[in-house]
């Protein structure tokens, strides 16, 4: 009979006058993959923390391995044997794979480390998974897939029977993600359970045994086998349909041409983008778009190949984002694109002085910008500190800064990878706004879910080469 690994009953968790978990019920069975889709992100971090650590709660009970570990009347602050695998590494970069798995765990009491024995054990473990990872490879040299596998092995060595996977689709390419799915299914057969957190139900429905929909601090619905369909989840999600009005038809003129771009790992063959177009480049293996995004953003000191923007050749080291050139929005713009020491208006008008060619921007210009964009961003435009803004408001600042700048091309790297459902819908609206204003938009992604709603054309890359092209009228043929 199935053992219940985790059970949370009627959990209420409040902090700072805010209720993060509101009468939440959640349970995970041994050997299952429980999908968790957060339509709203409030409380998700607290849920993950509570699963791993027995922090004080205002009401409810938590059971781990059928044992009461936390309740409202008494929390001992102990940890449950739960491991979290996420985008940031949980390994020590300077240590080898074997050392990370064995030496750092509790209970390793040896004073002399027999590297050969540990390496052999690692080889046996990875062989069982039908993959190959050198045990003496440094953790810093592992690719994201290998790093995830090593962390999985580490979790198993630590005796963790519940592993939380936080948005693996955001940092693993499609091929690696499928391979990782195969591995976690093997682990499930050995009684390990997973909580698979993701944004896109299409991906999670394929892998999970059950899926919980989390919103506003509680579980709104648990989908079981047979219920995991697009039609079943439709009443719980918001529509991603964009208005038809105001769409600009792409022109024939080529605005951006990329030829044989390479920064060392992969080579990207010819890609052309037309003026006014929204082009999605889908690189399922994450072969080249990571480097391309960095190269176009000026973060790479050197790259080879040819990048032509409106007939002008761009070189490595060129400052792209100026005047009417190229704007690159990274995959976490709310953290890396905004300046916490500046207020909202300063962030919005950053580098505008270079655009208009004057060292000081007149107050009348700023007033005019403020009145124009206040209608779009809302009252957050007057915020003195952007730390006070919500995630949606920060996304608005990022995209409206680009909108104000009106570059020829805006490049968005993994625009829908982060954020909850409402946030992603908002980002789509913002990309649509850029497109309506005449800016050509290039979307770089390893997951096409939802980006097709705003795209005119999709190019699927394999090893950097565009192998399949889909026009808007053919998007229904695309397998999501």
């Amino acid at each position, binding site marked *: *009979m199935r053992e219940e690994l985790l059970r949370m*009953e009627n959990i209420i968790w409040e902090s700072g006058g805010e209720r993060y978990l509101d*009468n939440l019920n959640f349970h995970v069975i041994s050997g299952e993959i429980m999908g968790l889709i957060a339509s709203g992100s409030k409380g998700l971090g607290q849920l993950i923390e509570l699963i791993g650590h027995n922090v004080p709660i205002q*009401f409810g*009970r938590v059971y781990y391995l059928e044992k009461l570990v936390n309740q409202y009347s008494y929390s001992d602050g102990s940890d449950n044997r739960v491991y979290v695998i996420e985008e940031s590494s949980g390994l020590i970069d300077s240590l080898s794979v074997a050392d990370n798995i064995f030496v750092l765990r509790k209970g390793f009491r040896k004073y002399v480390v027999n590297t050969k024995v540990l390496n052999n054990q690692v080889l046996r473990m990875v062989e069982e998974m039908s993959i190959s990872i050198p045990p003496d490879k440094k953790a810093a040299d592992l690719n994201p897939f290998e790093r995830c596998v090593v962390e999985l092995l580490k979790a198993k060595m630590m005796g963790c029977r519940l592993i939380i996977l936080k948005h693996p689709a955001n940092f693993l390419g499609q091929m690696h993600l499928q391979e990782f799915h195969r591995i976690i299914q093997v682990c499930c057969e050995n009684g390990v359970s997973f909580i698979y957190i993701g944004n896109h139900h299409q991906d999670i429905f394929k892998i999970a045994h059950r899926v919980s929909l989390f919103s506003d601090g509680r579980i709104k*619905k*648990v989908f079981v086998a047979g219920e995991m369909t697009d039609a079943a989840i439709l009443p*719980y999600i918001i529509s991603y349909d964009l208005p038809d009005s105001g769409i600009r038809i792409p022109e024939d003129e080529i605005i951006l041409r990329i030829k044989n771009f390479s920064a060392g790992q992969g080579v990207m063959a010819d890609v052309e983008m037309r003026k006014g177009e929204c082009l999605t480049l889908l690189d399922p293996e994450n072969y080249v778009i990571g480097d391309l995004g960095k190269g176009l953003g000026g973060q790479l000191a050197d790259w080879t190949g040819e990048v032509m923007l409106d007939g002008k050749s761009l070189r490595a080291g060129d400052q792209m984002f100026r005047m009417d050139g190229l704007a690159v929005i990274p995959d976490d713009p709310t953290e890396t694109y905004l300046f916490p020491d500046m207020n909202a208006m300063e962030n919005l008008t950053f580098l505008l002085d270079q655009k208009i060619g004057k060292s000081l921007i007149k107050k009348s210009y700023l007033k005019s910008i403020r009145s124009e964009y206040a209608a779009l961003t809302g009252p957050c435009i007057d915020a003195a500190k952007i730390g006070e803004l919500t995630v949606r408001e920060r996304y608005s600042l990022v995209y409206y800064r680009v909108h104000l700048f009106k570059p020829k091309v805006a490049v968005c790297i993994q625009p829908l990878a982060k954020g909850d459902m409402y946030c992603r819908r908002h980002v789509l609206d913002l990309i649509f706004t850029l497109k309506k204003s005449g800016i050509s938009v290039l979307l770089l992604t390893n997951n096409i879910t939802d980006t097709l709603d705003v795209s005119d054309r999709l190019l699927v890359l394999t090893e950097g080469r565009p192998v399949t092209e889909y026009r808007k009228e053919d998007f229904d043929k695309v397998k999501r």
Partner: protein
Amino acid sequence: MKKRWGYISVRIWTLILTLWLICLLITISLGIFGGNAGRNVAWLYFGILLLVTYIGYRYICIPLSETKRVERQFAAGYVFDDLFEIRYPYDPETEGVQSRFRELLDTRELINVSKKQAEYLALQNQINPHFLYNTLEGIRSEALIAGVDSIAEMTESLATFFRYTISHVEHLVTLEDELANIENYYYIQQFRFGDKLTLSIQYDLADMEEMELLQCRLPKLTLQPIVENSIYHGIERKIGKGSLTIRISATVNRLLIRVSDDGLGMEADVLSALNERLKSLSLDDVNPRTDRQGGIAILNVNNRIKLLFGEAYGIYIYSQPGAGTDVEITLPLERV
């Protein structure tokens, strides 16, 4: 509520705090005015004071706050059993009072009251069961003589239904019996709804035999009120067809039953308020009132489960307007 000084705890805490401050003052005075020798003594006293403070915090304040937390939740009506399982009672006399209180407040009495409420709901207008069965049998006979088999079948189903629900509400019956009652109830409802209503029962067996699962025990009339609610509130008012699904699964210690409908669903505020009432024993609804008969059925089922098995078990509801409702019933795995 009493004025502050009416509480013994306030007087005790005030006294302790005053003594502590006096000790601290003496220690500081010794340190300032006592010269070298006095300073050394002051440090010693300070160390002892710190140690006593730590011991007091660790072994008195923390257990006391745990006990007060349970009392607060009991007073707010969120918990019941926990008051009698406090880990750190104030003194032996208080512990004795709680035991005695528990004996006086015999849960069997509460269960009986709750059962009576269930019987009352089932009895409707307090019809004599024998009179009812005899009358139904008479109707069935007449229908058979007249050759109207559908009426005969319907009457037989109704008689079976009443025989199960009106008879003495025992504590536990098998899941097989409860499901048989549901199927009978569904058969009766089909005369009214036709193919608008469909029912399916699904088993998530894992490594358990279906027969084994069906022999698990649960309180009588656990499922029927919930199914009735789903039909009345969810499917009846829906335009188009509606389906009811009962999913049964089990873990090592628990029996999980989920009754799902694809009806109208509930608004978020109504759902939230209902789940709030379901999370604890709701003794306020023990006195039935005819104007709230429909609303208290699910609370009654929840109460009976909690009274019989403890507050860790009961009902939780998931719902979305326009999508439907899932009622999740959690019971301990009780096998025959």
